[in-house]
């Protein structure tokens, strides 16, 4: 059962809290305004709705009060297209006068607004995984607590080569930037560890039948899939239907916790690497999961946890600035200086590009009774977007793309 939200401001909670007047509150009696750019209609709606749920979950947990200030949340539906995102961002910045923006969901939405937002000095806390946002074309007001497209694929590749001892893999991902960047990251680390990516297949984003691609899977030890949205479901079903038995490795979206309720037996055995895992035992994660199950009847995944975490980051930054947001630069610096331990994804901090440095979890999908769960089997700590590579060297290479790194032979 999902909560419906209309676009009213959400003012802080209890009367008791409202009665308390700290000196901080007196100085900052204006509520802090947070804009959420999400997708609530169209094919991306699944992730977008989860983003909203995670955000609401966090603010409810805090009674819509951060650092002594009330919180006004403004939710904007971008419709999943860049032009719409630009318009909604303008609405948030110019009409709603928000102090910071959570979201947007997709990389192409973010790329459409980054110049505008940077000019407006608007802090953006997003999940959008586009690599160069924190590498070769950084936006100084952008921070990302989730991961770059490849950040979770690097440890997955390491695990695949060193521990699972795979030598040859075939990769399949949606044919767009997110898919390209994921697989490029996997390829680099996997091949540096002695493995070889034999084939890279790129089904278009909207592919009803994966058979032409599945039929080309041969001559490898394992398959790496990086599909997003509802495609992983379709893909794995068709994979099993074709009788394919090779082990499957997955990216963060490939076996997201929130997708588990939709999956069937075809997901069992999938080993994936994600920034978020439901079985992480931190108090905030427990609170998040309990709250999500109670309010929405589903466990959280990347999207809802990611926004919950964004809320925590905003809160930490506000506490650092004493609740002040009028000095954008100072607030932005405070955001980037945030370092937390008790979060649904575990401890993390940000590098000087504003990208997260934190834990990544290798999980295996298993059946427990009538439910599927992702069980963490290994944790990589303090993983940065550059993995173990030297940052300067990494940035001197071309950005991860469809053809880079090139296939060997």
């Amino acid at each position, binding site marked *: 059962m999902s909560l*419906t*939200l*209309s*676009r009213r401001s959400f003012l802080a909670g209890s009367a008791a809290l409202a009665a308390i007047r700290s000196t901080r509150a007196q100085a900052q009696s204006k509520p802090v305004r947070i804009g959420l750019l999400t997708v*609530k*209609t169209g094919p991306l709606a699944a992730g977008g709705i989860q983003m909203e749920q995670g955000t609401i979950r966090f603010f409810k947990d805090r009674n819509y009060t951060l650092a002594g200030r009330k919180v006004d949340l403004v939710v*904007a*539906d971008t*419709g999943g*297209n*860049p*032009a*719409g995102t*630009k*318009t*909604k961002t*303008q*609405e948030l910045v*110019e*009409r709603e006068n928000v102090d910071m923006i959570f979201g947007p969901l997709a*990389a*192409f939405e973010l*790329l*459409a607004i*980054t*110049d*505008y937002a940077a000019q407006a000095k608007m802090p953006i806390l997003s999940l959008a995984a*586009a690599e160069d946002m924190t590498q070769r074309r950084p936006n100084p007001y952008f921070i990302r607590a989730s991961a770059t497209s490849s950040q979770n694929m690097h440890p997955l590749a390491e695990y695949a080569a060193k521990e699972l001892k795979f030598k040859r893999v075939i990769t399949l991902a949606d*044919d*767009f*930037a997110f898919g390209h960047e994921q697989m490029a990251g996997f390829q680099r680390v996997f091949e540096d560890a002695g493995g070889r990516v034999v084939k890279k297949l790129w089904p*278009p984003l909207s592919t009803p039948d994966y058979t032409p691609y599945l039929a080309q899977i041969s001559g490898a030890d394992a398959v790496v899939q990086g599909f997003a949205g509802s495609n992983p479901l379709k893909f794995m079903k068709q994979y099993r239907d074709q009788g394919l038995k090779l082990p499957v490795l997955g990216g963060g979206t490939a076996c997201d916790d929130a997708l588990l309720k939709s999956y069937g037996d075809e997901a069992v055995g999938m080993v994936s690497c994600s920034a978020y895992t439901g079985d992480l035992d931190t108090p905030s994660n427990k609170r998040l999961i309990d709250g999500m199950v109670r309010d929405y009847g589903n466990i959280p995944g990347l999207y809802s946890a990611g926004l919950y975490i964004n809320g925590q980051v905003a809160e930490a930054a506000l506490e650092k600035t004493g609740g002040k947001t009028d000095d954008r630069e100072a607030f932005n610096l405070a955001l980037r200086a945030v370092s937390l331990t008790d979060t649904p994804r575990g401890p993390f901090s940000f590098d000087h590009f504003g990208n997260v440095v934190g834990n990544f979890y290798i999980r295996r999908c298993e059946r427990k009774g009538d439910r599927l769960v992702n069980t963490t089997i290994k944790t990589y700590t303090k993983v940065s977007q550059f993995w173990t590579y030297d940052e300067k060297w990494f940035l001197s290479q071309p950005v991860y*793309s*469809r053809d880079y790194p090139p296939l060997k032979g």
Partner: protein
Amino acid sequence: MKRLALGAALAILAAVPLWIDGTYYVNIASQILFYSIFALGINVLVGYAGLVTLGHAGLFGVAAYTAARILGGGHGHLAAVLGALALTLLAAALFAGLALRGTGIGFVMITLAIGQIVWGVAYRWISITNGDNGISVSARPSPFGLSLASPAHFYWATYAVFLVAIASMAIFVASPFGASVRGTRDQARRMNALGYQVWLIRFLAFLFSGFWSGVAGLLYLYYNQFVSPQAVALTASAEALLMVISGGTATLLGPVVGAALVVTMKNVASAYIERWNFVLGAIFVAIVVFMPEGLVPGAVRWWRRATAGGR
């Protein structure tokens, strides 16, 4: 009387940045104007030539991408605009040559196929279009030294272009060429018998239509300072077609009203109505039920009925 009303409307529109509160709404107004130009272009074919097109976002996108590439290559805005429009006309000629091979549903499907192919190319030919990451444009032009960076200035520039577009539409409709286009819609065979070159007339109408779609694409690019394959997707073509039909085909103002409807619903109403997609669909259905000829002709009809009878 009609002239006075029209003049007043145009004056009000011209003064929008002065009386509308907030840059956000000025920006919405700019969007309404350049989508109107897009819809007006499509209406040349759909309304006046009777040829339904589902691929015009392709021409819109050709203009936007060409300009983005030229700007990215370090050239100036004039080169970008001229180059984009030239390439758009070329593309329109090519598309028309292909599409006019079919009539009726064949024409629609060919335009659909062309539009999808343009979209596929935009997605896939990453070296040219940068794929779904899109191309950013760093600055808006400054024609005659007036920077279009501010919403008000951009609005006025768009408004000026809009005026030219509407004027050209009015001239087109009133001209012999416009009459012959309508002739090919209503009585193609008779036109042929009378010695008119039906194919050539349709071809030229397509070029005229494509030109304005390209202009709209340029304004879109400068407005968003970004273009990506979504701008040429099937939904973009379908939405533009819906603007034309809902507003009223074969009328001058219909596409403008339709554009205002869709843009307002998508951008403004969506802030207040969570299920705005449903409401938009319901509005379309209501239009068909109550005013199947479109909002503008329907409103005129209701107005006449209201002022005529002594009810």
